[in-house]
């Protein structure tokens, strides 16, 4: 990585070029998730920055204020973080055991990036919750979360399906479905 070298004389210019390059790569992958096609971009040059940003954003938005601490004992941030990362690790191990030829970090990368639709759903739900409450409020949130959940599952299927043996795709996709279902459920039942 020649761009990473900086001249020893100026420590102030702390590598802006690799940062922009990385951000652009992350943004490009976000686009690929939003418009899922069968492509190898996410798999070929995987990175975990995008999943980390998304996970932290989601966990921060799902954190309740301390006034409600008697309802849920522990910090929701930790809960979301652990669910996302251990869920992704479990699905990866499962798909490898089923005979998939995808590497560990590639799978983590795909699963992490495909949380983007659900993060967008969380943002929309937060905005909707600012409006007046009512059954319409709940219906709107339910609709948004369901659509985004389906989008996440379809996006991750588009990337992961090719790496599985053809007759076992359903076995590999079911835990992905459960994983995004649990995250969707956490988003839908969130009350600030």
């Amino acid at each position, binding site marked *: 990585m020649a761009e990473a070298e900086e001249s020893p004389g100026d420590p102030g210019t702390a590598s802006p070029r690799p940062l922009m390059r990385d951000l652009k790569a992350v943004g490009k992958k976000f686009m690929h998730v939003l418009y899922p096609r069968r492509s190898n971009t996410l798999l070929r040059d995987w990175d975990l920055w995008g999943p980390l940003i998304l996970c932290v954003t989601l966990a921060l938005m799902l954190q309740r204020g301390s006034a409600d601490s008697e309802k849920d004992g522990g910090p929701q941030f930790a809960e979301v973080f652990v669910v996302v990362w251990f869920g992704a690790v479990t699905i990866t191990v499962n798909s*490898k*055991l089923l005979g998939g030829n995808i590497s560990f970090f590639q799978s983590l990368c795909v699963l992490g990036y495909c949380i983007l639709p659900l993060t967008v759903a969380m943002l929309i739900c937060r905005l909707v919750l600012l409006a007046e409450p009512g059954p319409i409020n709940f219906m709107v949130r339910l609709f948004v979360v369901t659509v985004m959940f389906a989008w996440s599952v379809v996006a991750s299927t588009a990337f992961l399906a090719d790496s599985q043996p053809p007759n076992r795709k359903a076995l590999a996709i079911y835990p992905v479905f459960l994983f995004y279902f649990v995250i969707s459920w956490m988003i839908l039942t969130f009350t600030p």
Partner: protein
Amino acid sequence: MATTAAPTGAARNGAGPEWGGFEENIQEPLSSQGGGSAVIDMENMDDTSGSSFEDMGELHQRLREEEVDADAAAAEEEDGEFLGMKGFKGQLSRQVADQMWQAGKRQASRAFSLYANIDILRPYFDVEPAQVRSRLLESMIPIKMVNFPQKIAGELYGPLMLVFTLVAILLHGMKTSDTIIREGTLMGTAIGTCFGYWLGVSSFIYFLAYLCNAQITMLQMLALLGYGLFGHCIVLFITYNIHLHALFYLFWLLVGGLSTLRMVAVLVSRTVGPTQRLLLCGTLAALHMLFLLYLHFAYHKVVEGILDTLEGPNIPPIQRVPRDIPAMLPAARLSSTVLNATAKAVAVTLQSH
């Protein structure tokens, strides 16, 4: 040990780089073992003694002992050199440290690649979707053949997915009933309960099976109990959404009973002797049915007290009067007892805003 004496003898002459003691010691035994391959033979699958693991454990123990001996020899070596030339002591101690680091790193990476190699689990996930589907359906059909051991599929994919599904269903039930978990989180409680039941009860029944001389391995027990959770998933999924106590009891007996009977029949076919059969199957049946009861009542409808179910004849099931309502809940909740759980969530959301 004989192999360490020669290298240390050579080092006594003061030539550090010639002393390559550690490499020789470690490479010899492993080359005789065929390179420390991590793939376990298929014949050893059902062997509960885990002999292949014990072999590698002995090997590592021997390697560790050799290293300890070599360290002791190196310590003697250092003292010997100190009396002579101080320069050599520094150089030698650095080399000793380096050799120890290399040897330790090698051992650690070998141990890691052996035990963290998920290829060990690969045979247990070798299933097709059609097989999983048929096994799920068969887990609800008891087979009456008890004179010949019934076949149990030794796979872990189905049971693991069923445990995760149960976790998801439990979360759904806990959220819609506003379960209050004071220590820990909802997620942690759900995962702990489900995995704890699957692993804990499997181990306990396996232990009882060992006492009762039943022919079943740990893997088979895990698979059997895992597939037995399919009935639980169905019952909880339905009754967390349609909350009628009579309906729950009906499903508890019917669906829960069927999956329990299936497991009991399999165990009876693999156990000899009436007392042993009774002990083993009675314990499993009791634990399995009680777990379903526990899951329904502990994580759902915390608002209503258990007294309601005892007043069946006097009060029709739909018009329940909630008892033991904590003072902090809004009074508007009282009016929503006739709705089912999902609609209740809507009501709660409305009232809390």
